[in-house]
C-alpha cells in the first residue's frame, strides 16, 4: 500500500516536471567538448568553429552536408587564374550596428593568421592569399598560383568587425568586448568550464533565428550528458555514447538523430622502411617489411570483416568505408566500395606475396580519440591473427600516441608500422585527405603532413597536384576521384568505416545532423 502511494507520488512529480512549460524560445545544448575561446581566430578547432558560426559567420556558408552557399558574400567568381572576386551582401550589419564593408574582410584576412600564441591558426586557410578592397562591397582575393579551393577555404574563416577587432586580444574577445560579428546570435555571457550564453540577433540578414536565448553547457562525461537530457536540464546533447543509444531509443521523451560524418577511420601501414620495427617473422626474427608489397596490403584489407566491426564494435553507429569520404562528397569515386570480407582470398594473396605463413605485427592506436578506438584495434588484431598475421595490440592516450605516430622514430620519422587513425575532411571534399595522407611527404611544399605511412606514388602525386591546380569543378572532381582510386587500389591506406554521429533531443525538437560534426543551434528546429 505504502509502496503504491510512493509510486504514485513519484509519477505525479515526474509528470509535473515533464509537463512544466518549457519556454519554446530558449534552448540549452549539452556539449561534449566546450569551445576554448570566443576569439574566432585563436584556435582552429571543431567546437570553436561551431561557436563562431553562431556569432560571426563566414563569406560562404557550409550547409549540413558541407555544400557551399552564399553567406556574407552573395557571389564569388574567379575573374582570372590568380584573382577571385567576392561581392558582399548589401545591408548586413554587425551586432554593434556598424555595416559590413570590404574593410572588415581585409582586416579579418590580416588578423586571422596572426593571432599571438595560437595553438593552431587559420594560416592554414589564408596562406598565400591577399585580400584587396575594390569598393565598399567588393573584395578581390589574390593568390600566387591558380587556386581552385578558394571557396572552401574562405568558408572556414569567420569575419570580424574591424571597429571592434582592431587591436583586440583574445582576452578582449573572451570578455565579450570584441565579440562582435554578423552572425545569427549575439554574445551574452561566457563562464569558462560552465556555459556560454547567446541571444537572438534581431537584425540578422537571413532567416530569423529560431531561439531567443541559446545556452551551451559543457558536460564532458557521457553518462552525465545523457542524464542531463533525461532530467530536462538540457534540450539537446551532442555525442551520445554508443552504449546509451539502444536504451534511449526506448525513451518516450527523447528523439535521436544520426548522420554520417566526414571522418573516415583507417589503417596506415609502413610503406617506407625496408625493415619495419613492429613487423617480425613468425619466430620473432627480422624480416623484410612485407607491408611494402601491395598484395599483402590488400590481403590485410580482405582479412578484415568490416560488417562485424560496424555491427558488434560500433553497435551499428558507423558505415563501412571503401575510400576517403562517404558518397555525396565532392571528389568521391563512384567505383570504390568497401572491400568484402574474404579470408580465402587474403590467404591466397599472402601466399602469392611469399608470406604464406604470415608474420608478426603490432597495431598501435589511440584509446581516447575516436568512437570505440581501442576496441576497433583489438577486433582488427583478432581478425588478422585468424588470417595468419599474429597481431599484438598497443593503445595509448592520444597525448602520447600522435607524437609517436608522427615523429616518434629516429630523426622525427613515424615510429610505428601499422596504425589506426581517423581523418575528418574539414573542407568537405576529397583533396583534404589526398593532400595530407596520400601525397608523398614533402615538407617544403606542405604535402603529406599526416602521411604517417610515408606512402609515395608518383602517379598519384601527379593526379593530386593536377587537381589542385584545376579551377574547373567537373575536371577537378574527376581528377580527385582518379587519384583516390589509384591510391586505394594500391593499398595506400586501408579504410575501415565512416563515423556516424548521434545527437539526442527532447521530444518536440529535431536536429539536422551535420557531416562536419558541429553542434549548432541553427540545426535545432521545433518539430
Amino acid at each position: 500500500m505504502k509502496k503504491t502511494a510512493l509510486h504514485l507520488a513519484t509519477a505525479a512529480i515526474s509528470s509535473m516536471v515533464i509537463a512544466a512549460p518549457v519556454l519554446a524560445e530558449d534552448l540549452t545544448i549539452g556539449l561534449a567538448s566546450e569551445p576554448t575561446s570566443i576569439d574566432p581566430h585563436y584556435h582552429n578547432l571543431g567546437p570553436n568553429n561551431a561557436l563562431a558560426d553562431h556569432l560571426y559567420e563566414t563569406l560562404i556558408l557550409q550547409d549540413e552536408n558541407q555544400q557551399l552557399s552564399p553567406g556574407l558574400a552573395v557571389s564569388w567568381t574567379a575573374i582570372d587564374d590568380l584573382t577571385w572576386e567576392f561581392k558582399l551582401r548589401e545591408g548586413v550589419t554587425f551586432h554593434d550596428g556598424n555595416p559590413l564593408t570590404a574593410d572588415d574582410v581585409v582586416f579579418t584576412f590580416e588578423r586571422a593568421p596572426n593571432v599571438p600564441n595560437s595553438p593552431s591558426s587559420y594560416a592554414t586557410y589564408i596562406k598565400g592569399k591577399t585580400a584587396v578592397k575594390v569598393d565598399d562591397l567588393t573584395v578581390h582575393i589574390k593568390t600566387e598560383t591558380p587556386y581552385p579551393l578558394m571557396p572552401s577555404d574562405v568558408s572556414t574563416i569567420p569575419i570580424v568587425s574591424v571597429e571592434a577587432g582592431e587591436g583586440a586580444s583574445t582576452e578582449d574577445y573572451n570578455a565579450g568586448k570584441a565579440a562582435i560579428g554578423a552572425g545569427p546570435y549575439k554574445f551574452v555571457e561566457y563562464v569558462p568550464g560552465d556555459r556560454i550564453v547567446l541571444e537572438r540577433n534581431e537584425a540578422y540578414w537571413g532567416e530569423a533565428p529560431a531561439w531567443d536565448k541559446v545556452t551551451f553547457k559543457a558536460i564532458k562525461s557521457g553518462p552525465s550528458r545523457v542524464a542531463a537530457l533525461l532530467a530536462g536540464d538540457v534540450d539537446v546533447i551532442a555525442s551520445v555514447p554508443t552504449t546509451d543509444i539502444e536504451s534511449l531509443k526506448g525513451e518516450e521523451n527523447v528523439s535521436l538523430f544520426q548522420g554520417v560524418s566526414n571522418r573516415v577511420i583507417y589503417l596506415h601501414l609502413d610503406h617506407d622502411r625496408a625493415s619495419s620495427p613492429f613487423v617480425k617473422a613468425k619466430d620473432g626474427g627480422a624480416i623484410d617489411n612485407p607491408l611494402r608489397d601491395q598484395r599483402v596490403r590488400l590481403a590485410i584489407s580482405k582479412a578484415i570483416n568490416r560488417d562485424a566491426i560496424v555491427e558488434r564494435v560500433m553497435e551499428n553507429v558507423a558505415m563501412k568505408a571503401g575510400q576517403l569520404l562517404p558518397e555525396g562528397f565532392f571528389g568521391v569515386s563512384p567505383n570504390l566500395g568497401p572491400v568484402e570480407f574474404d579470408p580465402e582470398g587474403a590467404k591466397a594473396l599472402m601466399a602469392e606475396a611469399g608470406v604464406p605463413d604470415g608474420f608478426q605485427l603490432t597495431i598501435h592506436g589511440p584509446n581516447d580519440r575516436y568512437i570505440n578506438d581501442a576496441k576497433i584495434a583489438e577486433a582488427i588484431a583478432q581478425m588478422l591473427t585468424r588470417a595468419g598475421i599474429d597481431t599484438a595490440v598497443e593503445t595509448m592516450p592520444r597525448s602520447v600516441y600522435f607524437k609517436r605516430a608522427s615523429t616518434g622514430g629516429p630523426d622525427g620519422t613515424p615510429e610505428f608500422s601499422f596504425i589506426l587513425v581517423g581523418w575528418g575532411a574539414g573542407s568537405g571534399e576529397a583533396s583534404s585527405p589526398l593532400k595530407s595522407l596520400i601525397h608523398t611527404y614533402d615538407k617544403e611544399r606542405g604535402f603529406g603532413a599526416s602521411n604517417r605511412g610515408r606512402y609515395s606514388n608518383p602517379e598519384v602525386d601527379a593526379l593530386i597536384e593536377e587537381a589542385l591546380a584545376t579551377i574547373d569543378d567537373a575536371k577537378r572532381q574527376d581528377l580527385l576521384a582518379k587519384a583516390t582510386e589509384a591510391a586505394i587500389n594500391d593499398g595506400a591506406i586501408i579504410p575501415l568505416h565512416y563515423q556516424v554521429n548521434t545527437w539526442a533531443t527532447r521530444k518536440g525538437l529535431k536536429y539536422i545532423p551535420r557531416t562536419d560534426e558541429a553542434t549548432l543551434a541553427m540545426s535545432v528546429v521545433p518539430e
Partner: protein
Amino acid sequence: MSVYIVRRLIQSGLVVVAMSLIVFLGVNVIGDPVHMFVNPEADQAEIERVIRDLGLDRPVHEQYGFFVLGALKGDLGRSFVFGEPALKLILQRMPATLELAFMALLMAVVIGIPLGLYAGLKPEAWTSKTIMAGSILGFSLPTFWVGIMMIMLFAVMLGWLPSTGRGETVAVFGIEVSFLTWDGLRHLFMPALNLALLKISLVIRLTRAGTREAVHQDYIKFARAKGLSQRRIVFVHLLRNILIPVVTILGLEFGSLIAFSVVTETVFAWPGMGKLLIESIQQLDRPVIVAYLMMIVFLFVVINLIVDILYSVLDPRVRLQDKAS
C-alpha cells in the same frame, strides 16, 4: 629564534625550487602538446610555427629558465589551450571548488556526528546497525558510480534537483558564490553530498568509536550519578570530549576533499579547478598543470612554515635546541 626562522625560510625556498624542477621536467617529458592542438589539416610549416610560438623548440632548461623568470614576477605562464594566463584560469575556478569542499565538509559534520552519536549510544539497536552497514557502503562504493546513480534518482526519475552544472551566482567581495541563491543551492546539493559520502562515513565511525569509549568513563558515570539529564550529559560532557579527534581528522581531510573533487566535478560538470586540472592533463596544457601544482606546493609550504614558526613560539624547547646547536 630568528636563526630558526631564517633556516626554515631557506628550507622552504629549497623545497619550492626542487618541486618546480620536478614538476616542470616531469610534465615536459610526457607526450607532445603540438600534436594535440594543431588542426590535422595544417601543413608542416604551420606545425613548426606553433612549436616556435609555444616556445617548445627551445631546450627544456631554457624553457625552465623562462618559467622561473616569469614566476618571480607572478606570471606562471599562459595556457596553450585558452590563451589566457594559467593563474587567472585557476583562480577563476577556485571559488567553485572551495564552495563544494566546504559544503561537503559541513555535510560530513551535520550528518556524520548525529548518526555516529546515535550508533554509539545505542550500539545494539537495529537502526544503529543499519547506520554502520551504510557507512561501509559509503567507504567502498566508487564516487563516480554513486554520482551517476544520484543523478539518475534525484534528477531523472524524481526530477527534484538539476542534474549537472553550477547554479546562479552572486558576487560577494568580488568572488562569485552560488550557495547564497536558491538555484545555486539546488545545484550544489548533489555534488556536495557525493563528495561528502566518504567523509560522512568516516565521521560516523570516529564519533561512534569515541562515544562507545566515553560512555564508560568516570566523568560520565559521575554526571549520571549527579542526576544530570541524558541530554545534558550527551551534548555538553560527552560531545565536547569526543569532538577533538573528529575536528583534527576533518582538518586533515579537507585537503583530500579538494583533491577528490576531480571525480565529482567531472561527473556533475561542476566548473571547478579539479575539472580544469584533469582536462589540462588530458590535453597536455602544460602551463596550467605546472601552475596548478606549483600553487598547491606553495600553499602547503607556506602552511607548514607558519605551523613551524608557531610551534617555535609555543614550545620553548625548539628555541633552546636551536641555541645549543
